[in-house]
């Protein structure tokens, strides 16, 4: 099932050539800051020396990790391996954007030990891509998919977005169909959301863009789940599909199951033994703190048993695994809430777990509340 208790390592590479309009992840458009960041992260890595067990996943996310030059990536990974132990079968992912990719770079990345590429395709419709503020067109995205495959990556993921104003269900189907031709091992389908930190948030307030109707959102979601299901994909999390269970993203699943993870780089979050902490959301501050020999941690929280319980519900109901039928302390999560949810066809109980149905996924954020405070 590609799930383990080993910790995962995340590295945030907060640089982009330009900001996409929908994106609220922390990144800056200043390539000049890369060397300082690289130096800083090489100081951050040793801080966690021997504080984690053997890792079995590494995720290079961003930002646009492939913006780094080959030697910069090499230096980064060399440092990672110097201080952290990885199991031999580790899943090592890099996020990549179609623009600026070439065979040489991909081969270098592969030779550095990266065995999984998550490609930010988003759409194969030029109108959608322009709407999203992407730098690439559909042809470039198709070429990139080809390229990744031809460079010998056996685990390729495509990131897509749906529910755009510019997109019809038919248009979305065209994108999905063309992506399916490549038989990616993994497909992420993110519904368009307007996040406070993204440019589109302001554009929405100004009336320049707007979300699609809730009814249509549900239709997109249900169609996607059914269609990819018919093509053999497992809908294992709200936005994630895997060709088979071993291709479920091992790293991301750690976030959803309270498995320890270490996040390095500006704005990265970490979790270990009931404690969560996160780094400052500024490259400048990040570099300065590490330059002073201090950890670039912005803040931390220690989760109470009740909070852990609540999180395991909120995370659990977003995955096909669902939540344990037994709450902490062995109490059964039964009662009227469960029977109402079952009656409404939102969850089913199997193998001692309460699992959301396809319809249940649609309202997953509201389900935990029904089980807490009973």
């Amino acid at each position: 099932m590609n799930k383990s208790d080993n910790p995962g390592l995340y590295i945030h590479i907060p640089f982009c050539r330009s900001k996409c309009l929908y994106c609220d992840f922390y990144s800056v458009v200043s390539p000049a800051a890369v060397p300082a960041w690289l130096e800083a992260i090489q100081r951050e890595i040793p801080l966690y020396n021997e504080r984690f067990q053997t890792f079995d996943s590494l995720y290079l996310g961003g930002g646009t990790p492939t913006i780094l030059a080959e030697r910069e990536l090499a230096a980064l990974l060399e440092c990672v391996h110097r201080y952290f132990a990885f199991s031999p079968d580790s899943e090592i992912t890099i996020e990549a954007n179609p623009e600026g990719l070439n065979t040489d770079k991909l081969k270098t990345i592969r030779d550095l030990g990266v065995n999984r590429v998550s490609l930010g395709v988003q759409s194969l419709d030029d109108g959608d891509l322009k709407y999203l503020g992407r730098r690439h067109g559909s042809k470039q995205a198709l070429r990139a998919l080809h390229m990744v495959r031809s460079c010998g990556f056996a685990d390729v993921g495509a990131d897509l977005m749906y529910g755009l104003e510019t997109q019809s269900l038919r248009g979305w189907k065209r994108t999905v169909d063309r992506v399916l031709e490549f038989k990616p091992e993994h497909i992420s389908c993110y519904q368009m959301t307007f996040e406070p930190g993204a440019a589109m948030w302001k554009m929405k307030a100004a009336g320049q863009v707007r979300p699609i109707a809730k009814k249509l959102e549900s239709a997109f979601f249900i169609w996607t789940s059914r269609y990819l299901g018919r093509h053999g994909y497992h809908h294992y999390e709200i936005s994630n599909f895997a060709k088979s269970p071993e291709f479920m993203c091992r790293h991301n699943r750690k976030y959803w199951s309270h498995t320890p993870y270490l996040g390095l780089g500006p704005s990265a979050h970490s979790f270990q033994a009931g404690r969560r902490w996160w780094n400052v959301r500024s490259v400048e501050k990040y570099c300065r703190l590490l330059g002073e020999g201090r950890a670039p941690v912005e803040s931390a929280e220690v989760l109470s048993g009740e909070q852990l319980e609540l999180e395991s519900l909120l995370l659990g109901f977003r995955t096909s695994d669902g939540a344990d039928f037994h709450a902490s302390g062995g109490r059964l999560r039964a009662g009227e809430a469960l029977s109402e949810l079952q009656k409404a066809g939102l969850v089913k109980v199997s193998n001692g777990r309460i699992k959301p149905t396809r319809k249940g996924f649609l309202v997953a954020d509201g389900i935990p509340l029904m089980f807490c405070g009973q």
Partner: protein
Amino acid sequence: MFNGTAHKVEEVGVFRLSREPRGELSAGSVGYMIAGIKTVADVRIGDTITLDSNPVSSPLPGFKDVKPVVFSSIYPMSSDDYPSLVDSLERYKLNDAALVYQKDSSIALGQGFRCGFLGLLHLEIVQERLEREFDQSIIMTVPSVRYRFALLDGSEITVENPQYYPDPTLIKSSAEPFIKAAIIIPERYMGVVIKLCLERRGANPKIDYPTPARVEISFDMPLAEVVFDFYDKLKTVTQGYGSFDYELIEYRQSDLVKLDILVNGERVDALSLIVHRDRAREWGVQVCDRLKEEIPRHNFKIAIQGAIGGKIISRSTISPFRKDVTAKCYGGDITRKRKLLEKQKKGKKRMKMIGSVMIPQSAFVSVLKARDE
């Protein structure tokens, strides 16, 4: 002085209002007495005081024991505030002996009190004072009157709390208190006022013209029809010109039923009501609509029904969420999402659970708002 008018002075004098102890008070005296009376309820206005050692056989004429005629249950807005409500009512009672109350409990609203009031004004005063002077936030249930039921076994019971409505198969006849309502209005409002009174089952109208352009209308009406929002309505339709007075006359036969409100099949006891059969449907429809507005959407469909016995007479449905899930959930999203849930969880504590449906307090209050015509 300032307006330059002149008046002839008739008399000047001083007020004397101080206690002057005397050996005795006799016929014709107006005075006071001080005794070690511990509870205010022992003293009733108009009562007769007599010697313990040599009591008179009957009290002086004119005294009537005041009995509550309007009833309503008071619940604390949050069940944590129950002890403070107990305390407030005890203190309130010290200077208002007319309020009677006893413990009451509701599945929906928890512990509270069933209170009896002398009339509508009294009910409002109690509510206001509890809120203003005692800083209580309370929910009052729909006011009720005291109904009489003659049962098939020949016994008669009185019921002022819908919870104790007898088994309908055992009821031989039912009766409710009627009042004589006297309404004085400018002539131009006659039409709307008569319409209002007829809607409220008014009968036997009498119309008088005490002065030109002024009309006094009197109606026999069931008390139950005026305890709720009659006065507000009257003021509205007469643009504030109407005045209203009433006196209880008698109990009259009436076809009474108990209307229950069901949320997903579960009875919300605090919303049950004894009502005239002809008025039940209207009330049921209105409560269902009100609750539909107030109860938030859930993950499942919610049916709100008004029922008499097993018969459904009104219904509204709250459709479930269509979609309520966000796309992403990584690193920082988790803490954010949990905090949001924690906030919602707190909100949930202020809600009342009926089965698995969360009903906000505001829903109970909204039912009490004046009905739309």
